[in-house]
């Protein structure tokens, strides 16, 4: 993990303009707010956070589907926007959340999986056919599905097709945006196992976005916790799960309901008010819900503080408050 990062975000901000209701005026919505992030080769970076905090937006920026409003994205140290989109596409591929909408219903599985080859004009028809069979086999689908259509498949099978499509060009980085959240647990574990196997086999780097902390813990090597467009804590998976620092990370961890009977439902100690991303709270965005909020949290935005294996953004750990970093 000491090598140069394959993927790096530098102070990336993405702002949308949204209109609320019919009479609303357009207002800026900062979906990602000055985020810096590094992804080392072979790493699995888990990205967790509440719905609407900007995880998917981050994924889209990385994929080049959305241009950042400011900041830059570097792949292997090169700026992304200067690169040929198609070149980028060979290196970064996505797997989306909804296996039902991520496959074109009008195309056969063979068409869907071979699309990257055709777009990039790789090989001839016969070699493409071979490549498709090969990759289908790798993701655990029988070759006979080649001539079927997405509507004929189950969710898990579709997600396998999506994975096959993402991997057929042998990319380095795969961005998984909640790849299992639409699937039943019995299928989820198949997909997770598959992703784990593929990582081994192809030496892939993952950005793994999920709601499900248990899954993240299982798969990730590093974890970034996002809240309202900011990465509030980043750490190795062991560090985060053993000693979460940010109160939000703490709350997230304590909300994980493991199948252990008799332990009851934990108290997360979070307020019930969900902040409006268009009009985020002042100071530390998290302060209205924070059980350990201090008066100045409402005024001053915290700055990133280094931790042994990452960083945290919280006044609790700010030197100026006299608190030592653990």
């Amino acid at each position, binding site marked *: 993990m000491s090598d140069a990062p394959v993927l790096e975000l530098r102070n990336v901000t993405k702002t949308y303009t949204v209109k609320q209701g019919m009479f609303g005026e357009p207002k800026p919505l900062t979906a990602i707010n000055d985020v810096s992030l590094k992804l080392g080769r072979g790493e699995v970076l888990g990205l967790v956070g509440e719905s609407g905090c900007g995880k998917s937006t981050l994924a889209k920026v990385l*994929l080049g*589907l959305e241009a950042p409003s400011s900041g830059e994205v570097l792949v292997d140290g090169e700026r992304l926007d200067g690169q040929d989109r198609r070149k980028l596409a060979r290196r970064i591929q*996505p797997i*989306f959340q909804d296996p039902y*909408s*991520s496959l074109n219903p009008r195309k056969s599985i063979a068409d869907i999986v071979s699309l990257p080859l055709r777009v*990039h004009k790789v090989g001839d028809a016969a070699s493409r056919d071979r490549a498709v069979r090969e990759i289908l086999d790798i993701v655990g689908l029988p070759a006979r599905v080649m001539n079927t*259509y997405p509507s004929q*498949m189950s969710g898990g099978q579709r997600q396998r097709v999506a994975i096959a499509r993402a991997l057929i*060009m042998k990319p380095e980085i795969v961005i998984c945006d909640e790849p299992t959240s639409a699937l039943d647990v019995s299928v989820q574990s198949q997909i997770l196992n598959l992703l784990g196997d593929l990582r081994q086999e192809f030496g892939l780097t993952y950005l793994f976005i999920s709601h499900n902390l248990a899954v993240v813990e299982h798969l990730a090597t590093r974890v970034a916790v996002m809240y309202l467009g900011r990465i509030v804590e980043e750490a190795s998976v062991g560090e985060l799960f053993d000693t979460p620092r940010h109160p939000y990370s703490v709350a997230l961890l304590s909300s994980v309901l493991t199948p252990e009977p008799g332990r009851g439902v934990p108290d997360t100690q979070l307020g019930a008010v969900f902040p409006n991303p268009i009009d985020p709270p002042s100071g530390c965005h998290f302060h209205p819900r924070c059980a350990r909020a201090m008066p100045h949290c409402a005024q001053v935005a915290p700055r990133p503080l280094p931790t042994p294996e990452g960083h945290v953004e919280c006044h609790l750990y700010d030197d100026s408050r006299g608190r030592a970093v653990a």
Partner: protein
Amino acid sequence: MSAAMPRATATAAAPRDPLLEEITGPTPGQMLRRRIFGHQGFLIGTITLLVLLAIALVAPLIAPHDPYAQDLMSRMERPVFMGGDWDHVLGTDHLGRDYLSRLIYGARVSLLIGGVAALISGLIGTAMGVAAGYFGGRVDMVVTFLINVRLAMPVTLVALAVVAVLGGSLEVVIGVLGLLLWDRFAVVMRASTLQVRGREYVAAARAIGCSTPRILLTEILPNILNALIVVVTLEMAHAILLEAALSFLGLGVQPPTPSWGLMVSEGKNMMLFEPWLVLIPGAVLFVLVLAINLMGDGLRDVTAPENRS
């Protein structure tokens, strides 16, 4: 009930487990076929339309008379079922021309106008709608504004005015209708494109590196096609009815071209005395438009079952 139950057989071959079937469902094609043949309205509409289309195509072969041959001495002869003779099965019109032959040739006019007008407006509207839906922003603003302008123009009135200025003829009527009826295409295509654009497979295609035209052609278009076809049928019906109305008001296709609207208009004067002159072409028009609408409605059900109850 138990007919489908597997019976333990003595044969060595392992009996197939019924639960294993249907792991892969029917193909989209099979499903479509199943739905088509299960949809009465669609079948009736389509078959009627095909029959009318066939009649229009082979009009010269099946028309018993020259639709233009006038015989002022045998004007307004009644159809057979009203006591006329078999020479003119549906009677003759006010200039003694064979009504049946004119109806048969009239099918050509209606279908031609409906088809070409829908084609023209379909091209315009689809291009605008897809562009607006896919690119959004300025393009969308301009297209939406144009749609607004178009909707605010009273179609019948503007069509009448333009036809009055340019003189009625098949080409003018087709052109005017084609240039006026694109609004629904634009609206529907815009909405459909917006919907499809948000699907993840479009994002996936972009992430793969597909070019915009390729995405439009292979990812977007096939998925808005069914909506498009439905609008085509609706607008075809609309164009046919508008042409008939224009002709009825005397500003559509010009005589002696046998247009059904014109026939109603010409028969209208004698409506009190020879109502069949109006009833027959009107009914044929009704049947044609009904068939197209049934087909369109059916198509909507058949191609997009998710929109159904």
